[in-house]
């Protein structure tokens, strides 16, 4: 066993290795994956002097505890939580030293869902298609953390920046998600689209890394049936037969057959990743892409 590693003492509800994800493989059925709260992941890395693409641990609600086998500089960001080293409280959102063999614990999230634990040198796992991210839908990447598992740490690349710490960005009482309508908004009645932008939705407890599910009113469809499978975007609001939108997060399927009523731009997805079940959700219309309504055009056949 290498010394540049850590032992998992308490894996928590779901702790996975995450980075910036896999880009460019959707046509093979491989989704983006990667940290759900990308700003928090990047920040954790910056605090310990890593490149932003280094792998961190993403926890879910209940945190995790690990024992580094070498001295490590760590930082915990994302959902605020009590952080302890050897049982003693240390700062959240700040680079802290963990002696070799000491227990590092990120406790249960006080607000939000997902905390990020960065180690100087990053978590080392075998990259798959250029990423170390765990994709819970496709099974690519390292397995979620388990009791007693040993994960390697990379070599620290340089001095840790001299930063006092960062504030938590605060908790919004409701999740406001701007939506660009389309591509399949025409599968819904005007009343259905009004329901989307005026209805009282809540984050469902069935949400996960694949999608944020909603509870609330059902969007009325203008037509029945399923679409032929088509490519699905990160941030797509897919509407299954029960009419309640599902917001596609990092581990979403690359193709799907239910209509997408609109798409939430990526910059709003970090907030979605931190919304606990029960949080009120409001969808607000963003002006449709500047190039106007969908057009049907005829292209000359070549050949």
């Amino acid at each position, binding site marked *: 066993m290498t010394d540049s590693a850590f032992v998992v003492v308490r894996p928590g509800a779901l702790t996975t290795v995450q980075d910036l994800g896999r*880009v*460019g*493989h*959707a*046509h*093979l*059925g*491989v989704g983006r994956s990667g940290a759900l709260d990308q700003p928090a992941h990047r920040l954790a890395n910056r605090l310990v002097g890593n490149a932003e693409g280094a792998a961190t641990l993403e926890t879910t609600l209940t945190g995790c505890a690990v024992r580094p086998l070498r001295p490590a500089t760590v930082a915990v960001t994302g959902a605020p939580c009590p952080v302890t080293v050897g049982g003693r409280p240390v700062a959240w959102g700040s680079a802290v030293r963990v002696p070799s063999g000491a227990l590092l614990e990120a406790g249960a999230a006080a607000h939000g869902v997902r905390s990020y634990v960065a180690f100087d040198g990053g978590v080392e796992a075998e990259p*798959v*298609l250029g990423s170390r991210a765990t994709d819970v839908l*496709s*099974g*690519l990447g390292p397995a979620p953390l388990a009791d007693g598992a040993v994960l390697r740490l990379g070599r620290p690349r340089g001095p840790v920046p001299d930063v006092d710490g960062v504030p938590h960005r605060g908790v919004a009482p409701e999740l406001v998600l701007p939506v*660009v309508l*389309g*591509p*399949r908004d025409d599968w819904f009645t005007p009343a259905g689209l009004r329901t989307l932008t005026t209805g009282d939705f809540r984050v469902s407890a069935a949400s996960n890394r694949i999608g944020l599910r909603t509870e609330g009113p059902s969007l009325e469809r203008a037509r029945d049936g399923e679409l*032929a*499978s*088509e*490519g*699905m*975007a*990160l*941030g*797509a609001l897919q509407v299954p037969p029960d009419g309640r939108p599902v917001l596609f997060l990092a581990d979403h*399927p*690359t*193709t*799907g057959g239910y209509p*997408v009523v609109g*798409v*939430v*731009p*990526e910059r709003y997805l970090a907030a979605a990743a931190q919304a606990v079940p029960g949080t009120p959700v409001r969808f607000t219309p*963003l002006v*449709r*892409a*500047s*190039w*106007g309504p*969908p*057009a*049907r*055009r*005829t*292209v*000359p*056949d*070549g*050949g």
Partner: protein
Amino acid sequence: MTVRTLPVGEHGLLIELDSGAAAEALHAELLRRAAERRLPAVREIVPAARTVFLDGLADPGRLAAELPRWRIPPLDRGDSEIVEVPVRYDGPDLDEVARRWGVTPEEAVRIHSGAEFRVAFCGFAPGFGYLTGLPERFHVPRHATPRTRVPIGSVALAGGYTGVYPRSSPGGWQLIGTTDAVLWNTAREPAALLTPGTRVHFIPVSDNTAPEGAAP
């Protein structure tokens, strides 16, 4: 050819065609233009049943406006490599598929292994290709209740598509056979054996090594 361009968020463009063949032709043209650097920078090009989705475009509206001026040659089915997939036609649904086709199981094997397939698109799981090539009269429905576990390497039919399960998973397709071909290997480039545009022949074998009637 009719194309319809639909916005997907701020940086995506969904291009809808009037047939699967037209979508495959557009996908081939997009790949040609990308290889020749005549396509704006794009993060993903995802073909599907009747659409091609482009994501990560700086200005999707510009490409949407340009598209009507493109000349898209019809698909040249001889333009891509052929992958031969050895299959033991021993699937639990072979008899039912043959019954639906109104032929004997032996004839069903001849029909399936005699067809030339093409990977229209991937989805469902990494390396799972949706292969077209069976005439419409041979289309079959999915099982009403999916199996909880379909073994790795299962060769299966649903709708007009043939697919091969790259790993064991739940699934509702009609299982007609099994292959030992490695569909997904991340140590290989590309990781998927069956990538969009690839032509595929299924070769009947009685075991893993001896193709029957596979002579050139």
